[in-house]
């Protein structure tokens, strides 16, 4: 099966290419990139990409696919379909499944399930500690051999500093990064950001320092043992400043933020809409500004989704007891394109945050449009206007605070391993 994508604006952030070109895909490889490619009449599927942009497929370093154990919230099948729709050709899935991905059999299960049913590549993340209990290290080597690309106790922090230190040191053996969810549990007994909005709503609130404290602790430990550390879903200005300062002397720090942290502030929680309940919480306007600034000055390397799908019964309850999380795969890219329109990032810079930096971080071979590379591509349009309708999400999780939002810019076509895994209804090419 071969595909010829004609006349698209090809942007490859790694090499800096940004030109109208044709791309010829043969099997699962990018065969040729050139102007006006002519094919030798074989069975070629021609796609007209005029007016659209072609880029490498996006890589999400943080998503929850909920399988095994929480299949009513999402499965690998439905989650990756959602990912493909959103423009993601690779997804790292977190370990807080049931059973927890702290051993080879769960990793094997995920990989096999993905092979059989997934619409995009799935890279499992293993747990740092057994059962995510924070007490004993998982058998990280065994997990590595089974195929994990990183370890994380995401959902919580590793409370015990000694355990985190051991995990950071030990994983140097396998060269896999530790992804850290930064949250001081004792300070974090609330549901929204502590600020003016929580004063008005009376909801139990969490100060931003609950995140910053652990960001600083984790960086300090990582630096001490000279191991890389990745801080995930950074939401507050204090954390951005801490990371910026630390990066001056210690380079092995990376971090990501999520679209909701640069698109919404805690004011969104004032109506008690549980779709705005997320951990870390939506922060104050100053923090939103700081996140945007952090993306601009490259303190924040990546944008991830922290896709957290939930069934409606766990969200359709009082705010205090509703589940935390936003189903983000299908809106992440479009929300991020607003950063380009707002002048926070150029389009290639945005694409670096979604493609080049994650690929480098995880040591993945993808993330580039070049002859001989695997054909993981997306075709998107910068001007396409659409309205977010959560009921038409491919994800089982309809929990989004962006329902009804009019967005500009949309992923229209996703190719993974040379095969079309998503084609938008509106795409006529």
């Amino acid at each position, binding site marked *: 099966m071969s595909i010829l994508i004609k006349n698209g604006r090809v942007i490859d952030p790694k090499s800096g290419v940004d030109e109208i070109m044709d791309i010829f895909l043969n099997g699962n490889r990018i065969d040729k990139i050139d102007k006006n490619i002519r094919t030798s009449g074989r069975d070629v599927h021609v796609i007209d990409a005029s007016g659209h942009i072609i880029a490498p497929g996006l890589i999400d370093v943080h998503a929850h696919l909920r399988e095994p154990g929480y299949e009513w919230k999402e499965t690998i099948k439905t989650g990756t379909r959602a990912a493909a729709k959103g423009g993601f050709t690779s997804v790292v899935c977190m370990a807080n499944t049931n059973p927890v991905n702290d051993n080879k059999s769960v990793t094997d299960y995920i990989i096999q399930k993905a092979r059989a049913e997934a619409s995009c590549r799935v890279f499992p993340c293993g747990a740092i500690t057994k059962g995510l209990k924070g007490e004993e290290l998982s058998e990280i080597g065994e997990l590595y051999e089974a195929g994990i690309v990183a370890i994380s106790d995401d959902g919580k922090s590793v409370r015990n500093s000694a355990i985190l230190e051991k995990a950071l040191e030990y994983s140097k053996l396998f060269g896999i990064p530790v992804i850290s969810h930064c949250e001081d549990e004792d300070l974090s007994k609330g549901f929204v950001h502590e600020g003016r909005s929580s*004063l008005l709503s009376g909801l139990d609130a969490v100060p931003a320092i609950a995140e910053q404290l652990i960001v600083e602790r984790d960086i300090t430990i990582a630096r001490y043992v000279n191991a890389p550390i990745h801080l995930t879903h950074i939401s507050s200005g204090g954390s951005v400043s801490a990371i910026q300062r630390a990066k001056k002397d210690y380079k092995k720090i990376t971090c990501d933020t999520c679209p909701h942290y640069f698109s919404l502030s805690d004011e969104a929680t004032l109506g*008690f809409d549980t779709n705005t309940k997320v951990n870390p919480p939506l922060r104050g306007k100053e923090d939103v500004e700081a996140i945007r600034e952090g993306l601009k000055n490259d303190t924040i390397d990546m944008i991830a989704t922290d896709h957290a799908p939930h069934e409606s019964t766990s969200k359709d309850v009082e705010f205090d007891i509703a589940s935390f999380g936003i189903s983000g795969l299908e809106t992440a890219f479009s929300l991020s394109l607003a950063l380009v329109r707002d002048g926070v990032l150029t389009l290639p810079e945005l694409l670096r945050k979604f493609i080049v930096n994650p690929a480098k971080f995880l040591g993945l071979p993808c993330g580039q449009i070049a002859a001989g590379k695997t054909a993981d591509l997306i075709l998107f349009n910068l001007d396409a206007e659409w309205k977010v309708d959560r009921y038409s999400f491919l994800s089982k999780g309809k929990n989004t605070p962006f329902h009804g939002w009019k967005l500009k810019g949309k992923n229209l076509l996703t190719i993974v391993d040379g095969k079309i895994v998503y084609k938008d209804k509106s795409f006529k090419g």
Partner: protein
Amino acid sequence: MNWTKKDLLGITELTKEEILFVLDTAESFKEISKRDIKKVPTLRGKTVITLFYEPSTRTRTSFEIAAKRLSADTINISASTSSYVKGETLKDTAKNLEAMNPDVTIIRHSMPGAPHMLARIVDSSVVNGGDGAHEHPTQALLDLFTMREKKGTIDGLKIVIVGDIIHSRVARSNIFALRHFNTEIICCGPPTMLPPHLEELGVRVEYNLKKAIRNADVIMMLRIQKERGGVNYIPSIKEYSTFFGLRKEHIAGAGKDVIIMHPGPMNRGVEIMDDVADGPSSVILEQVENGVAVRMAILYLLLGRET
């Protein structure tokens, strides 16, 4: 003016005109409670449900009396005896009740936003009887009614709210309401109990009780909200009482003709001493009396709203 709102979820949703309209309407209802036959036929045949997930004597009884004096039928549901203990969600409880066609449901809940959720689900009117630490609108309205009655006006008053403000829905609703008027609002309590950003609402923060109540026209004492974790914010009740309990000696340092208010229930000896609670400056029992009139006014306005 015409009342158009279906629900009373919070003071936040009311305009100053609407607040005053409730107070003016309540004046007419106060008179009924003084008669021999304390009933008017105005809400005859209407059904009022009180759905209380948190215990209450004062508020629930007050609403019940208000409804009955207007000739409405009342039904009381409390969480402990309802299907809640069997795991029924608020959403389902709401839908089941709605199927029985009530006209008004008054809900008290330990979590903010519960009345708002209820109001989205049901077509009938919803009154917030207290939602967690968020709002208690009828309490604020009766507090303002009492202030206006005793002082002749709300404008120009210096009002001091003392206590566990971070956990207090009474404090929030009162602050939201008083901000519409030309008032000086001071919040006093241990720093741990005063939420950050209070000053942004135009409120002055003062940790010292004596300083705070100097020249005060109204002192509103609040109870430590144990059920919302209030006790974890202070080393001990004894220490709290030493520094923030209102004593008779304090009154002399307050404004002339100061009135002492408390939403109840009181923890005598903790935030307020007997001789203050029962003293001549206390209007605590009048607050209760006014509560019935204000709640009658609310029920009347909601059910008679222009559609």
